[in-house]
């Protein structure tokens, strides 16, 4: 079994090899992401939940439109109904984002990865970039398909939206951007907390539990929380109508991105300093 061909050229050719680059690490992370089955299932769940739930909610509300009160008809939001599945689909993105780095900690793969790429910041950056890129593409496809399916189900029963209507194209396209930002946040949270369960629980707390608790607070507390809570602020980008005590779409998304940058910076610092 030990043939003579261990070396291609022997260890004396060392001047010939080139330095590893960030592009190499990107290719490596792409291979990692596509070579495990959880990626396929989580992205399938994102697409199916995003389109399916949006379609179901669009159809159900459209059929009830005739019975809506006048004020209910005033707040009629056909784009919003077709995009309703995105909030649930985002949970699949969160789980996959957390797992793509924390599963390396639970399996021990992280040590192999960091021996291969000891410039640790590159591993985190490449992982975040590859996963955010994939999420962005899948997210945009999901949001646009959900929009067209939803509007097709609504039309004929109730007023429907078109991409040319004010704010609609921005809201639908914003879904992919919001998911991409959430993807980076999830990878950073996974790197920061290292345990899959802890990181997923924290992300769900940030996304759902803490904003829910804020609803029970008095107005003077609740309004600034609703306005500036990063993930709440980020979703303003995906909404056509502006409601009270929320930021405008782009400023809201900027607030979310700032939060992502802060969490990412902490994750990067700790990854660099901690023993692996």
């Amino acid at each position: 079994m030990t043939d003579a061909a261990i070396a291609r050229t022997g260890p004396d050719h060392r001047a010939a090899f080139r330095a590893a680059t960030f592009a190499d690490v990107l290719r490596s992370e792409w291979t990692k992401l596509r070579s495990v089955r959880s990626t396929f299932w989580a992205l399938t769940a994102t697409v199916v939940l995003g389109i399916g739930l949006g379609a179901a909610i669009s159809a159900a509300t459209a059929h009830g439109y005739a019975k809506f009160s006048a004020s209910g008809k005033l707040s009629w939001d056909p784009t919003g109904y077709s995009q309703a599945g995105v909030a649930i689909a985002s949970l699949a993105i969160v789980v996959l984002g957390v797992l793509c780095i924390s599963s390396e900690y639970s399996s021990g793969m992280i040590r192999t990865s960091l021996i291969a790429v000891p410039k640790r910041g590159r591993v985190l950056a490449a992982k975040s970039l590859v996963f955010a890129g994939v999420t962005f593409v899948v997210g945009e496809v999901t949001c646009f398909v959900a929009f067209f399916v939803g509007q097709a189900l609504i039309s004929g029963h109730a007023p429907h939206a078109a991409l040319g209507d004010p704010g609609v194209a921005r809201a639908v396209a914003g879904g992919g951007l919001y998911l991409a930002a959430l993807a980076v946040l999830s990878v950073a949270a996974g790197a920061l907390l290292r345990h899959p369960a802890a990181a997923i629980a924290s992300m769900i707390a940030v996304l759902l539990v803490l904003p829910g608790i804020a609803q029970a607070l008095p107005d003077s507390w609740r309004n600034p929380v609703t306005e500036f809570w990063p993930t709440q602020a980020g979703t303003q980008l995906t909404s056509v109508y502006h409601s009270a005590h929320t930021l405008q779409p782009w400023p809201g998304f900027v607030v979310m991105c700032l939060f992502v940058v802060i969490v990412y910076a902490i994750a990067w610092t700790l990854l660099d300093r901690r023993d692996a």
Partner: protein
Amino acid sequence: MIEARNLVKRYGSTVAVNDLSFSIRPGMVTGFLGPNGAGKTTTMRMILGLDAPTQGSVTVDGRSYRDLPAPMREVGALLDAKALHGGRRARDHLLCLAQSNGIPRSRVDEVLRIVGLEAVARRRTKGFSLGMGQRLGIASALLGDPAVLIFDEPVNGLDPDGIHWVRTLMRELAAEGRIVLVSSHLMSEMAVTADHLLVIGKGRLIADTSVDEFVRSSSQQSVHVRSPQAAELAARCREAGATVRASLEEAFMGLTRDSVEYQAAGATP
């Protein structure tokens, strides 16, 4: 050359590695020998940049590991055969590592052939035995055709055939002029694999010597005797003025007796 200068690693109040200095030269197999918990793995983790030394430094060819421009082409390492994602196919595991250092795809198939895992290249590693895992770990260490190879307990879990294969591989790699550092807690393993020994206990360097020298100094002029009446033979030999040791194993245990971390009560006379 791997060079450690006054390496210290503390975890809280535990001192895992205590003022360790050594240099490892190419062209021979260097055995890193010590009982469990002596600090072998911690030292290797510091060489590979996974753990930061509390004090001191360790360099590969004069540079700290994190500063190597293409680490896998300079150093190949097997620390833990289970350090991989079980859901990934063996070939994809090697491919993502190769890509991270710009190593061509063709080299993946080459190393799979060298370690004899071609037949299972498309299987997910979850189902691999410990021995197959060790072979895959060795394959990843060989990917970059590096001049420095570091193996932590590489024969663990291998069958006799596999053990023989690993020993031969180490010797071949060293004969090609590479640095080969192999850790083990078994003196008998080191006696047949290594040319040079670094013996550590409780994080301290106990001996830095050739295997021949180590065996000679520990056993003086010795003859290996097997006998069904070993006890009686030993008594007679002692009467005649000879020193009787049970084995090389004992030479090693004698040297590290004071530095074994977990000692069973009454296990040693």
